[in-house]
């Protein structure tokens, strides 16, 4: 029987064109039907030197289905190279050309001698969502662009974390993570955002190790890099938000990288001291508002659901109700992620469900006894149901309509403070 999926929180794999867009001076070339880029682009933060409205596209139609679209792809790449000044051209294939069997890899290989690198990533919608598409892009970079080197730069760490644009705080979070890594004496390398781009992609291979901060996205990428480029990796599942998790994170990274323990502890002490100074000043507010939200639910991808649940429980002392992971996490990672949700302070454990259907999530929220008003951190879809329950709602996951984020972050010590500010802004507004 046909199934209906209500309010899903991701896009098709071709949505990974935004991952390409996040690499400065990289341009996606779409081998897809007309309109895909328009549909997949997020309104906020996607304009600029290249925007989805000008992404070269083969705009394939019925003729290309019958006769194949490779000629058109060839001319589109050829002309893109002529008229668009970019550093990296990434061909992304949509569903149609992959169904009818266009050999895009073959076409792209004809551009091996082009002045600028042209690579390709199969991102047909039926192969998965844009989280998987994001992995495909990074895979394409590793397989088709990066070259193994024996020259390793001491202390250089590639950081992989959020999925650009899908995650509203992607830019700020990456910068905040870089800063933290820098503070303990390592040299961070990321490829997304301002002034990173191709020069940082070129540095990937000479990194000492890969630091992956994500429950599952990009696990296969770092494994591939280990095999192909000989870069070991540290997979840290929890996005560190707030003092408790960030300190734990720094200790673990420091240990892995062989950083002097004292140096790490000094950084931690300095940050924690300021963090708790802030918390202390607002302790009254937190205590008084405690009655508003005894329990919370996060409706987000695994990255945010896990990171925020740990933060709210460990740092703010809230009690987790059911948590909803909406990114269609591949089955092989689910058990490990479920276990992570049980590793909370104060002997608490959070129940987590992997659910992509917004209707079912809302039914569960409605039917749960939050012992008062719920606090829901989720996508814009969850605003109405939270308001019906007189709860407090904060828009932290896709789709985002309630918030504009330019370079804000929720990662680290400062990120935790930002999130507290946001939550308590919402909470205090109801008294005004």
């Amino acid at each position: 029987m046909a199934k209906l999926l209500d309010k899903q929180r991701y896009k098709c794999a071709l949505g990974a064109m935004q991952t390409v867009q996040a690499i400065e001076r990289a341009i996606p070339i779409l081998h897809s039907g007309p309109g895909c880029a328009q549909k997949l682009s997020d309104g906020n933060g996607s304009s600029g030197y290249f925007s989805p409205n000008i992404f070269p596209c083969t705009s394939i139609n019925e003729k290309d289905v019958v006769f194949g679209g490779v000629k058109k792809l060839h001319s589109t790449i050829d002309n893109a190279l002529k008229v668009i000044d970019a550093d990296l051209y990434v061909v992304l294939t949509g569903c149609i050309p992959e169904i009818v069997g266009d050999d895009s890899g073959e076409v792209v290989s004809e551009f091996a001698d082009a002045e600028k690198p042209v690579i390709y990533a199969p991102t047909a919608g039926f192969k998965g969502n844009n989280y998987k598409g994001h992995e495909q892009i990074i895979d394409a970079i590793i397989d088709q662009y990066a070259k193994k080197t024996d020259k390793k730069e001491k202390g250089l760490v590639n950081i992989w974390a959020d999925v650009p644009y899908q995650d509203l705080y992607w830019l700020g979070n990456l910068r905040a993570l870089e800063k933290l890594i820098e503070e303990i004496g390592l040299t961070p390398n990321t490829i997304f955002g301002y002034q990173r781009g191709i020069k940082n992609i070129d540095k990937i291979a000479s990194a000492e190790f890969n630091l992956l901060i994500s429950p599952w996205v990009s696990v296969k990428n770092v494994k591939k890099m280990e095999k192909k480029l000989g870069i070991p990796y540290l997979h840290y599942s929890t996005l560190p938000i707030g003092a408790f998790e960030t300190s734990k994170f720094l200790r673990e990274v420091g240990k892995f990288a062989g950083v002097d323990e004292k140096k790490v502890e000094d950084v931690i002490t300095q940050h924690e001291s300021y963090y708790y100074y802030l918390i202390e000043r607002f302790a009254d507010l937190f205590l008084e508002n405690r009655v508003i939200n005894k329990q919370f639910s996060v409706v987000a991808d695994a990255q945010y659901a896990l990171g925020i649940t740990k933060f709210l429980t460990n740092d703010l002392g809230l009690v987790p109700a059911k948590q909803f992971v909406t990114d269609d996490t591949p089955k092989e990672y689910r058990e490990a992620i479920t276990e992570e949700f049980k590793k909370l302070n104060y002997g608490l454990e959070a129940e987590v469900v992997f659910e992509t259907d917004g209707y079912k999530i809302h039914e569960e929220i409605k039917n749960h006894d939050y012992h008062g008003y719920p606090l829901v951190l989720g996508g814009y879809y969850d605003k109405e149901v939270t308001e019906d329950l007189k709860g407090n709602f904060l828009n932290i996951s896709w789709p985002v309509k309630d918030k504009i984020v330019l370079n804000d972050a929720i990662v680290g010590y400062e990120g935790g403070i930002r999130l507290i500010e946001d939550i308590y802004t919402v909470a205090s507004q109801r008294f005004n």
Partner: protein
Amino acid sequence: MSYLIAVATSNARDVDLGFGAATGFHIYEVEGTDYKEKEYREFSEEIGGAGSSSGVNCGSAGACGSGTGCGGEAAGCGGAGADTGAETKPSGCNGPSNGCSGSDGAQRKVELIADCRSLVCKKIGFQAQKQLEKRAIAGFDVECSVDEALSKITGYFDKIDNHISLRR
């Protein structure tokens, strides 16, 4: 159920004519994925003319019909002229006393193959493409042999009709 495909070809071997340049179409009858030539349909430019019923699109058909009105049709009616067969001749617009046959020329030609499911030719102009779409005729502008075109198109329709995936 069988259906027809019109092909614009000068030698019944290669798809070598643009829609505008074609003076007639080879009509193939298709059953499943088997096809055979059924007939040749010639497009007569005299038929209808300015006063024909299909001239309604052309409000000023009468005026243009005088033969002067269209002198500058390269601009006025050029839409179709350029589209349909610029490289050969602006056949859409220069028919004898055809007047502003911009869409009209295409329209009458499309009517000639209105019972076909598909049209194969070297090039199709925008006007003609729209007229084909209006009649749900799938237009394919390709340069290949007639056999290649027909085997690919019949294979495609056969899969669509029988709900078979196009996946290769």
